[in-house]
């Protein structure tokens, strides 16, 4: 049994413009200690998928179907009380903007202590001790002295470390990290990613890493799910995905990233833009932008199927893609190449 099993997750938002199908039939699992990247562009549904796991979808949004099983327990039918216990306890969370995650009127130490207090029956002195230890673990220098400092006295990178401390204070098994380094400079980002790496190794922590940044995902994750317009279009171990993408969208995305040392005058681009999720194209949602689309693509919605070339590759950690090329319904071939290194 995987640590987290998400099956056929369906999240909709009921807006004035219509029903937004933010996540539609999404399935994935995360094993203990595994780092799963969820990548895609704005509007792909990757953040909503993370929030759904945490039971944090609020009106006008609603989870309309599917299952979220964490250590076998169905979180979608769990009580609010149980969900509060899980959040901050067995599942930690880190979001993009540390300034929003931290309360400006409480000291950073108190904010870490608060999550410990909510989850344990420790005495005050022990809670304080554990908060100091956690701050130390995430690399806040002089944690005992800085315990009483307020968030504004910290730089952005240090604030994000404090947020990480609140997420990790109760030794979670899973961390949901949504663009945790996007607001930070590369030099600071490098430090946070290294820290996440060390902590994940040391505590066998699983991470659902939501990001638009293909570089960060390459560095951080073991496996990746690529999302497009609310659906998973490709799932693969990270190396397979980057070196041998199977879905035309993934290939297009990989090709459009500027890479160091690549001597290209122009960047290959995808035409068009992400569809409006109120009114998604029929058939394959990517077909209006896909250079390989055929008549069939406008009619049939491709399932996520095995896309490995040989039977030997088709193992448990198989490479899956949602494209009619892999169900035998396409008359042409997908003809793309991605060069990772020159």
């Amino acid at each position, binding site marked *: 049994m995987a640590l987290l099993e998400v099956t056929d997750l369906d999240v909709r938002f009921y807006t004035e413009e219509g029903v937004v199908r933010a996540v539609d039939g999404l399935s994935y699992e995360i094993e203990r200690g595994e780092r799963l990247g969820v990548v895609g562009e*704005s509007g792909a549904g990757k953040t909503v998928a993370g929030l759904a796991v945490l039971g944090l979808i609020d009106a006008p949004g609603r989870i309309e179907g599917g299952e979220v099983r964490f250590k076998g327990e169905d979180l979608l039918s769990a009580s609010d009380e149980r969900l509060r216990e899980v959040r901050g306890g067995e599942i930690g969370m880190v979001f993009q903007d540390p300034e929003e995650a931290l309360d400006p009127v409480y000291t950073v130490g108190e904010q870490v202590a608060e999550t410990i207090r909510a989850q344990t029956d420790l005495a005050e002195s022990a809670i304080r001790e554990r908060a100091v230890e956690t701050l130390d673990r995430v690399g806040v220098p002089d944690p005992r002295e800085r315990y009483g400092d307020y968030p504004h006295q910290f730089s952005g990178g240090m604030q994000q470390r404090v947020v990480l401390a609140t997420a990790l204070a109760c030794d979670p098994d899973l961390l949901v990290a949504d663009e945790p380094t996007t607001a930070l400079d590369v030099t*600071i980002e*490098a430090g946070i990613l290294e820290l996440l790496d060390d902590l994940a190794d040391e505590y066998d922590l699983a991470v659902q890493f939501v990001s638009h940044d293909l*570089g960060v995902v390459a560095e951080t994750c073991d496996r990746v799910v690529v999302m497009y317009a609310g659906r998973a279009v490709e799932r693969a171990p990270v190396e397979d995905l980057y070196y041998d993408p199977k879905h035309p969208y993934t290939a297009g995305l990989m090709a459009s*990233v*500027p890479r160091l040392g690549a001597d290209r005058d122009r960047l290959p*681009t995808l035409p068009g833009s992400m569809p409006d999720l109120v009114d998604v194209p029929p058939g394959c949602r990517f077909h209006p932008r896909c250079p390989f689309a055929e008549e069939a693509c406008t009619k049939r919605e491709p399932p996520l199927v095995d896309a490995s070339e040989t039977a030997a590759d088709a193992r448990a950690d198989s490479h899956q893609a949602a494209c009619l090329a892999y169900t035998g319904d396409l008359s042409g071939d997908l003809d793309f190449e991605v060069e990772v290194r020159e």
Partner: protein
Amino acid sequence: MTLLRARGLTKHYPTEEGLLDRFLGNRQWVRALDGVDLEIREGETLALVGESGCGKSTLGRTLLRLEEPTAGSVYHRGDDLTSLSTAEMRARRADLQYVFQNPTSSLDPRHTVGELVGEALDVHGVARGRERDDRVRDLLETVGLRASHANRYPHEFSGGQRQRIGIARALAVDPELIVCDEPVSALDVSVQARILNLLADLQAEFGLAYLFIAHDLSVVEHVADRVAVMYLGELVEVGPTEAVFSPPYHPYTRALLSAIPEPDPLWEGDRIVLDGSVPSPVDPPPGCKFHTRCPVASEDCGEWESHPDLESVGGDHAIACPYYDRVESTFGGD
């Protein structure tokens, strides 16, 4: 040919403090720019990189006198821009344009796209009436929008399209230089690629020069002819892109480059993680401003009277660190 030349450009802001502090003369100054010398050449793309708070945007804005410099000069066609009158400077802005990072907040939501782009033509008296409307339509098509978009409002467009509107506005007056302040950092990768291609096309067609302010070094390597690296209001390295991205390096440049997350799961590089964050520009470290975080600093670096000057290390490539050769001997070539 040099298009714009900055000499000793300096910008200090007062920090926001209470009335009492001001009364008692306790006013403190943020030293955003400290005597920057820089030139931008005709038709080139010069990238300006560095961490947030290093003064990149202040330099871009001060060069075009969107902010008044505290000291120093900016020369354009033989004139010092800092001594021009407001009216003279307004006329000069037809040659020197600015595109902002956030296309949503830089476009007035109450005006149609046609009005927004046409405004620049009106202000500079470039075209009127029918000719003006035709020119607006041409410009929209030039940046990859449709002429019929002229009647729509900014909120009807996506982020990438809004950035195109910002670019059309800048192009309207036929400038020589556009300062692009993080023009793609708010955009998704696939959209980013299209805007970068558009900027390249426009440069080829109109012979534009860009000052490209960015923090993403993979983007910079792709677009720039030359690169200037900033740290705490000082330039620490300037040179042709290839030279800046290969040894010899300023230790700060080397650290920045090593921190780039490569979209390659098998990539293995030696990462130099810098300690701490950028010190406060209110009270920058003495001597070399980078010495507090520098992986190759020695004791004397903090004792110099001022930040080291840029010294040529070959041709056009200059580094502001007398000990730059330690970088390679400590960390290797790439």
